[in-house]
């Protein structure tokens, strides 16, 4: 006996563990929030391209972010009337391309991107490890470069430390002769990159944008990137500080140029940005289609089906309440799952109007059923007649309620008619056989369980969790299965068996 139950309990444990771990996994991966109303910050960055048309066909090509480190892109959008637009992914660099046949005069193009900060986004990885570019120097620079690289190499052991040392050596306050010979303000970052490549370290420049709320007309700031054999590392080219500062978006990484315009001059790019908050749930829904885990969620379904599932997925909670109330508490209800259906109707009608409508329909139905029983009808036709009467009653209540100015009277139509007819029939038989007391006990028990189920099902958190984490139903299923094994005393039995106290 006890041996045969171990696999059962193990399976239940697995079921519950699976439900919880899938939910946690989806929370972490998709960012679906545990609670409703959670807000997430989103950066809206707008690139503005200005140029003057020269009356020729124009092709404007702007480099746009491609898997920037520390951020995730959630949407991209271009606004530029009259232009053809597309995003081109050309050998690892993404560019937004605008085109138009005849352009003259000042032109403005916009490109908007929405980003969320994400510490786990590491940035794009090169498919093939990059090689240092060959660099040629002329005298007297060649000797100066060699000397500086020698000095830096002596003080360092890795590409990173080499880079840091080289940046320090190139600072003007070092006062070294070689430095002053090489460095001018205009070519500083270029020089640094070339020297590192010369030393055998793949290096490039990247353009970053410091994100601050509600800033306009911002410009990109150059950063130095070196390849350490596994990925691109970012350095501040002036302070040698390694790593990307917080709230800096690397707009351009791999691309050689930021903006190319054919058929226009006086071009300029500037950026403006805004920090917004949007509900975390909306964010997760927007991302689910891109993410591989998206197929597990219900967001892909048409909206109409989604709202149906929203309701359906609440039913297990109702079943859980009924199981708990009957197995552990021991409340008697008329019809096992009638309370769930009543609770579902309450969700549509709201509680108080629903209760009033339900009780009045059943009470009027019971009176009419009293007359039907004296007619000596066969069971099937009696139930059928009752269903029709129930529909008359609900129609009557709706009309009467409406005439008296209660719109809530209309909600009575949400009740399942056939279930109500059967409830009336059962209550009526119960009344004849067991007396009115049992009718009230079972009727009140059913309503109590229905109200409990309603309160749980109508909680915003319940509908949020059941719909966004459908896998949590494994947990509900596990608990219901566990309750099926509960052999302890019901709460009501502690009262029922009270007289046994005399025999102990």
């Amino acid at each position: 006996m006890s041996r045969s139950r171990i696999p059962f309990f193990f399976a239940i444990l697995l079921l519950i563990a699976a439900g919880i771990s899938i939910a946690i996994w989806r929370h972490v991966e998709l960012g679906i929030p545990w609670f409703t109303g959670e807000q997430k910050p989103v950066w809206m960055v707008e690139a503005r391209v200005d140029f003057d048309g020269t009356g020729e066909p124009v092709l404007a090509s702007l480099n746009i972010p491609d898997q920037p480190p520390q951020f995730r892109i959630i949407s991209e959008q271009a606004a530029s009337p009259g232009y053809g637009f597309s995003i081109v992914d050309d050998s690892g660099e993404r560019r937004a391309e605008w085109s138009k046949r005849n352009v003259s005069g000042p032109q403005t193009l916009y490109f908007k991107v929405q980003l969320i900060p994400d510490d786990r986004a590491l940035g794009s990885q090169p498919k093939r490890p990059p090689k240092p570019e060959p660099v040629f120097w002329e005298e007297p620079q060649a000797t100066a470069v060699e000397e500086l690289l020698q000095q830096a190499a002596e003080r360092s052991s890795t590409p990173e430390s080499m880079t840091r040392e080289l940046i320090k050596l190139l600072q003007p306050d070092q006062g070294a002769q070689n430095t002053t010979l090489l460095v001018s303000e205009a070519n500083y970052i270029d020089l640094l990159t070339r020297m590192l490549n010369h030393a055998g370290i793949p290096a490039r420049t990247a353009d970053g944008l410091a994100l601050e709320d509600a800033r306009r007309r911002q410009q990109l700031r150059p950063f130095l990137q070196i390849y350490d054999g596994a990925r691109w590392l970012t350095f501040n080219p002036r302070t040698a500080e390694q790593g990307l500062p917080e709230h800096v978006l690397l707009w351009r990484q791999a691309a050689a140029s930021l903006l190319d315009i054919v058929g226009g001059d006086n071009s300029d790019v500037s950026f403006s940005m805004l920090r917004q908050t949007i509900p975390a749930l909306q964010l997760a829904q927007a991302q689910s289609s891109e993410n591989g885990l998206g197929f597990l969620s219900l967001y892909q379904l048409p909206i109409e089906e989604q709202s149906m599932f929203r309701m359906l997925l609440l039913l297990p909670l109702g079943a859980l309440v009924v199981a708990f109330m009957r197995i552990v508490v021991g409340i008697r209800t008329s019809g096992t799952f009638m309370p769930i259906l009543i609770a579902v109707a309450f969700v549509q009608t709201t509680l108080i109007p629903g209760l009033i409508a339900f009780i009045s329909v059943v009470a009027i139905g019971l009176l009419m059923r009293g007359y039907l029983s004296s007619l000596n009808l066969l069971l099937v036709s009696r139930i059928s007649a009752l269903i029709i009467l129930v529909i008359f009653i609900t129609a009557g209540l709706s009309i009467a309620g409406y005439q008296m100015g209660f719109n809530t009277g209309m909600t009575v139509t949400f009740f399942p008619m056939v279930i109500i007819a059967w409830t009336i029939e059962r209550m009526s038989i119960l009344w004849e056989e067991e007396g009115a007391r049992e009718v009230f006990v079972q009727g009140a028990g059913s309503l109590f369980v229905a109200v409990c189920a309603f309160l749980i099902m109508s909680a915003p958190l319940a509908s949020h969790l059941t719909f966004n984490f459908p896998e949590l139903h494994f947990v509900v299923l596990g608990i219901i299965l566990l309750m099926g094994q509960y052999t302890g005393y019901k709460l009501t039995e502690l009262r029922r068996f009270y007289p046994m106290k005399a025999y102990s």
Partner: protein
Amino acid sequence: MGWISPFKLNQLGMLNMNRRNVDYIARYNSRSSYPMVDNKLKTKLVVAEYDVRTPKLLQIVRQQHEISHFREMAEDLDGFAIKPAKGSGGKGITVITGRDDDEYIKASGSRVSSSHLERHLSNILAGLYSLAGTPDVAIVENLVESIPELAKYSFQGVPDIRIVVFQGYPVMAMLRLATKASDGKANLHQGAVGVGLNIANGRSLNAVQFNRPITLHPDTGLALENLLIDDWQEMLVMASRCYEATGLGYMGVDLVVDVNEGPLLLELNARPGLAIQMANGRGLLPRLRQIEALRRTHFTPEERAAFAMDTFTSQI
């Protein structure tokens, strides 16, 4: 009324509903045997092969059109009982004790016309009283006339004896007496009196009504102490035989003692209630566990009844 702690109930060995369903009914009662006890007609036919007698079958009404034959058959009868074959808990049972011209006299004393009985039959056929509302069959049986020694305790209605049989061993018994509150029915939850019976000798232990201990019958006013059932061993053997007949490991056997025919089986129940423990003032669990712990069970009903009489004295 107060509350009792679950530990105390455990100590008393009280069987509760969840444990009864999971550990006894689900484990020892095979689903395929249920129709045999849920259908009184099948029960009658099956137990007859095992020498367990039931009230004489007068008529079976299977179809709506057969109801017309009922009047012809009932012409010559004074008393009879109409029962739905698949009814439960005594629902739909109408007992006719006599005639007055065209009218029939019910056990409660009220008079009904034959058209009322025909309507009742038609309700039974439609499945009004059957467990799942499925179409049913009505059976008409000979009226059971209880022996006066027991009948005097009961307010109307026939007193019956409920014996819980576990794996063929009678483990607990009680006498059920109808009261005014129970409307002549012997159902405890409707207000009938339950009198616990000592398995060893058929003597009364204590009595309860609505789960509260009583010493006198509320309507007849008779003391319920020192009540003794005759032919006790025979009744235990009869109950024990039903195990062979149905194969149900855990069931309630309802017996009556007819003045002419002696002990008769009224019906079997695959889900016997828990109130019998209150009437006996002791829990079922220690007795059930003692049977479960038996290394070798006894083969014949006689041996099992004798074992139960030896073992389940009022101490256990």
